[in-house]
């Protein structure tokens, strides 16, 4: 089972390395969206500090959603997805491998970029630390939940729009606790409660969404 997971991750990371433009567009989208707000709102430090966590999180949500299209569609079009479904491996494990590499490619760069962008909003070092931890716990959930939506809309016309309608409402709890954790730490309440809740969302998502995605993929294959 672990060999299957390992080989799917190796395969998808190799593919991503050879198609770097796709990966970089997501990252640049995130950087530009986050950087546009200070320009639009003006340099009032208190306002920026107040909205900083929310802006970074909303941008992360949109960037993660933007990259969902890549998760299954290329494999679906060239037929390698049906071949993966027909291997004697549990589909949930293969899905988990694909989601893991999707997160490594589109989630981790956001986490690494976030503290740099947070500086534009005058966030303190402690708040930046909490922001990074919250993104580290939250972005895997975005990839996991997004995978269900991506699998359900596979092969549909206008699937890109549909996936945002399906997935964005499900992202709301992650957004609330993610952005809330930074605000809580800024106001001195401590971020622990919010971060624990993010972790509590991550664990069931990790257990259940690969199954759901596998089912959705089988339905899309028909």
């Amino acid at each position, binding site marked *: 089972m672990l*060999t*299957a997971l390992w*080989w*799917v991750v*190796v*395969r998808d990371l*190799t*593919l991503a390395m*050879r*198609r770097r433009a796709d990966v970089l567009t997501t990252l640049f989208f995130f950087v530009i969206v986050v950087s546009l707000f200070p320009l639009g709102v003006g340099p009032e430090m208190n306002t920026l500090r107040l909205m900083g966590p929310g802006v970074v999180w909303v941008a992360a949500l949109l960037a993660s959603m933007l990259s969902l299209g890549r998760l299954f569609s290329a494999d679906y*079009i*060239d*037929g*390698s997805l*049906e*071949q*993966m*479904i*027909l*291997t*004697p*491996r*549990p589909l949930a494990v*293969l899905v988990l491998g694909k989601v893991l590499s999707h997160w490594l490619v589109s989630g981790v760069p956001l986490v690494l970029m976030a503290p740099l962008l947070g500086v534009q909003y005058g966030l303190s070092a402690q708040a930046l630390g909490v922001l990074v931890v919250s993104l580290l716990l939250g972005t895997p959930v975005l990839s996991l939940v997004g995978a269900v939506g991506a699998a359900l809309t596979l092969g549909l016309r206008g699937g890109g729009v549909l996936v945002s309608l399906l997935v964005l409402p499900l992202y709301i709890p992650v957004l609330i606790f993610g952005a809330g954790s930074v605000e809580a730490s800024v106001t001195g309440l401590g971020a622990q409660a919010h971060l624990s809740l993010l972790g509590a969302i991550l664990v069931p998502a990790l257990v259940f969404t690969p199954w759901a995605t596998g089912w959705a993929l089988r339905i899309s*294959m*028909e």
Partner: protein
Amino acid sequence: MMEVVDLVCVRGERRLFQDLSFSQAVGELLYVHGPNGSGKTTLLRTLCGLMLPEAGEIRWRGENIRRLGEDYHREMAYVGHLNGVKDELTAFENLRVMAQLAGADDCDERAVAALQRLELSACAELPGKVLSQGQKRRVALARLLVAPRTLWIMDEPFNALDVKAVATIQDILIEHLDNGGMAILTTHQEVEITADRARHIRLGA
């Protein structure tokens, strides 16, 4: 080994075929004939388990393939219309990943041997996107050789292949049948494989 009982397949609103029954034993080759749109691909995809039949049952060693799931996949290989060859990976990498996921031993050696057999050694290190249509088809067919499987299900395997490659595939098929394998395939080309072992079914007649 394989039994199909009263199979009914529906695509959209249209009933493609009904009450299709046949059984297949080791060493047998089954040709599926029929005009375009008669449901050949649908039948093959249903036999793989990619599609659910409207009614009827497909049994492998006496068990429904739905119940067997991954155990059935361990004995079956499918070459569909789509090659499943990634443009960004080399021919060798494509085969190696599929061999690993198929759970084969000595994946690297097997992938090299399969490429050699299909005369792809020269393009082993070339990415899929520079391969010609026929070469991609051969990479897809090489997948049959990287992991030992009893049942081969092939949808138009000779598409885009040149005469020599068709002959190679014929040889490989005959070897497979001699070694206790079985195969189900559709083709519009007249490719004869020792007629006494071949059986035919016609759809949409």
